[in-house]
């Protein structure tokens, strides 16, 4: 089943409450996805440093910090439960290689200038509390509550998936051609960490964006190349987009006001949003790309 949620703020005054708005949405969608939950927050930071969201699992944080600073002298590390946010000026490829070669028991959940991703197994209510989502501020955010159907209940199997800088994807549905597509994308040099179908869709999107296609073109091509059932929400540094497959079995409802655009699998996840009863509320049409920001 799974639940997906997203919110894109148009009014900066709401930036400080982004985390608490998303937290309520995620907790409500626990009824559609009790296994695991995750969220990506974009907070438009200035500066040249990239941020890496890393799940350190059961590793001792102090040891990890010490070992990492041996490889990265400018490492600025912040801990949030079993995830850490690493900031460094080093090039992305070098950092990814260091993590891959020397920290095999950690998993990189995403990186970028703006994005921070947290995901873990457990009920959405617990996951939201564990990572203190309420305290986060930012410009836009997406989240997912998972009811696992096609791969195991693990952190790697949780959403959002990020396969490119400041990109992430959440998915309600299932893809039927993901094995074929994974093979094709691997040949193009894209790495996958799990057997999950959504990770393939995320890789597909990253590959397209890297080839200078914009988000709208990418998702329109996705309609042709991705076979299966889906409602996707995909986030980029400055915006987000929504796409449903042409059969549209997987639900989605959008509420738009002058202050924000919100999307969720069910309206009840948005019932707490300010002014939602006077929002423009509609169901995204099948096979049509909706996008906000850039």
């Amino acid at each position, binding site marked *: 089943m799974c639940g997906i949620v997203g919110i894109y703020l148009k009014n900066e005054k709401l930036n400080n409450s982004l985390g608490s708005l998303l937290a309520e949405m995620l907790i409500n969608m626990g009824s559609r996805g009790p296994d695991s939950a995750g969220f990506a927050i974009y907070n438009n930071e200035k500066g040249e440093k990239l941020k890496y969201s890393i799940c350190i699992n059961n590793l001792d944080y102090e040891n990890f910090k010490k070992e990492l600073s041996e490889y990265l002298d400018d490492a600025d590390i912040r801990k949030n439960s079993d995830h850490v946010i690493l900031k460094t000026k080093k090039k992305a490829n070098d950092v990814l290689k260091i993590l891959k070669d020397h920290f095999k028991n950690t998993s990189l959940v995403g990186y970028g200038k703006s994005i921070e991703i947290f995901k873990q197994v457990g009920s959405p209510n617990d996951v939201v509390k564990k990572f203190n989502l309420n305290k986060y501020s930012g410009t836009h955010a997406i989240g997912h509550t998972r009811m696992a159907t096609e791969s195991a209940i693990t952190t790697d199997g949780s959403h959002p998936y990020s396969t490119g800088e400041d990109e992430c994807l959440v998915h309600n549905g299932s893809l039927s051609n993901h094995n074929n597509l994974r093979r094709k994308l691997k040949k193009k040099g894209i790495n996958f960490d799990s057997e999950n179908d959504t990770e393939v869709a995320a890789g597909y999107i990253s590959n397209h964006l890297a080839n200078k296609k914009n988000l709208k073109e990418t998702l329109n091509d996705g309609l042709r190349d991705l076979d299966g059932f889906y409602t996707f929400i995909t986030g980029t540094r400055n915006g987000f987009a929504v796409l449903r497959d042409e059969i*549209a079995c997987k*639900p989605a*409802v959008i509420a738009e006001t002058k202050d924000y655009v919100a999307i969720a699998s*069910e*309206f*009840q*996840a*948005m*019932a*707490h949003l300010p002014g939602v*009863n006077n929002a423009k*509320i*509609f*169901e995204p*049409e*099948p096979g049509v790309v909706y996008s906000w920001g850039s």
Partner: protein
Amino acid sequence: MELDLKKLKLRNVNDTLQNLDRKKNERDFTIINPEGNHAVCAGLNKEMNVTIKGHVGYYCAGMNQKANITIEGNVGTGVAENMMSGKVHVKGNASQSAGATAHGGLLIIDGDASSRCGISMKGVDIVVKGSVGHMSGFMSQSGNLIVCGDAGEALGDSLYETNIYIRGKVKSLGADCIEKKMDKKHLNKLKKFLKDAEIKNFKAESFKRYGSARKLYNFKIDNSY
């Protein structure tokens, strides 16, 4: 009587409406703060008037018998699914599968209904003042589906004996669904539906009628679909 879903549990609200105290003469109810709850007013079976102020989730007014239910907001999947009788009036938009498998009664949607509106309907009358999405009237068996706006792809696919009236454009017809001649008796029927739904700005003559070619559900050895 006002029922507040912020204070009362959904189960209590539905229980109250499903088991009306016959000694009291209370037959008018207002539900406030529905906040997208599912199955609001499901399984009502007595004559009463219920107004829901706000947006609701899935299966609102499902299995309705005799009750007159008005939703002042949008509805999720499967509004009035399996309705037997009574009236359900949605003042906003409806999500997919509105009026699915419903046997009787009248469903009015003031806005748009998305995909699969009236799927497998078995005698209900559905009036949509806006447009309907793809696969509407899929495998519908009897009753009337009236749409003042447009219809999406594969309208009336594999339908049996439902009458479909569309005023706007039809993106495509489904298997075995064809345009049919509008006779006087159909016009008269349609006029009555438009009146019941308080539609004054459209004339019955501006609609087209669609129905089954009856080639798919009558067994024919050389059927070449």
